[in-house]
């Protein structure tokens, strides 16, 4: 094994329950980042089409009237 990867192996993969824990923890972290990234991508696909893009127009006029 290359010397650089030995500490990674020893800390993350050597013990099975540590490995499992790392897998589940990274699943949570991955889900959050993935959802974020996909939402960003989705918003770029649909720029100007969604309600949040045009919402400001209508909310502001309401406040001006008040």
């Amino acid at each position, binding site marked *: *094994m290359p010397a650089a990867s030995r500490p990674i*192996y020893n800390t*993350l993969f050597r013990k099975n329950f540590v*490995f499992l824990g*790392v*897998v589940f923890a990274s*699943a*949570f972290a*991955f*889900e959050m980042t993935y959802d974020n990234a996909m939402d960003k991508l989705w918003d770029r696909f649909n720029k100007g089409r969604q309600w949040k893009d045009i919402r400001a127009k209508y909310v502001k006029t309401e406040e001006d009237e008040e």
Partner: protein
Amino acid sequence: MASLSQIPRTMLCALPRRVSPAALPIRALSTSSKRSDATSSFDSPFRGMGNDKASNIPDFSNYRSKQGTKSNLVFQYFMVGTMGALTAAGAKATVNDFLVNMSASADVLAMAKVEVDLSTIPEGKNVIIKWRGKPVFVRHRTADEIKQAENVKVETLRDPEKDEDRVKKPEWLVMVGVCTHLGCVPIGEAGDYGGWFCPCHGSHYDISGRIRRGPAPLNLEIPTYEFPEDEMLVIG
């Protein structure tokens, strides 16, 4: 022709014959790598398989890593672990979606809140509002009534509760109007304690909705409510 009942016996007979002496094909396998006398520059694992197809297997030893079995262990665990993590994330999302299904649907949630305009309720008046099919009493209490409700000795009550724990603003008393005895709707501004009186079995509630006399075991229930604006009450 052998009948069916004879088959097990013939198999028993055949088994030791197969196992004990070295069967020809298996012994031949070990020699396959020695036959690597191909002249081509391409080192095919299938070389030398021309003559006897039954006794030859390809030689994959060239594909083996030269650095030993542990050389790319980190990479291997990384790939397996990534697959596990992705699967776990997917499974979590799936389970989550099923659980979300069980929560109240949008039309139920839309009916679950009731807005009440408080400016239309004068002091010392009761208003009954339907909320999730149940009546809710809203009373605009006068200063005297508040004082009266606060001065009651809590220890003497059947269901001891301070008045300040039952209201968010002392002048507004909001309660579910269902008698805690058998579920009748009590009558407002009646009874011996200036509060509510249940006509079914004669339970008397005071001006804070606490049970004082009669068969009911508990005080009138308080729903969750809030005052988002000064003159606005949202129940639910």
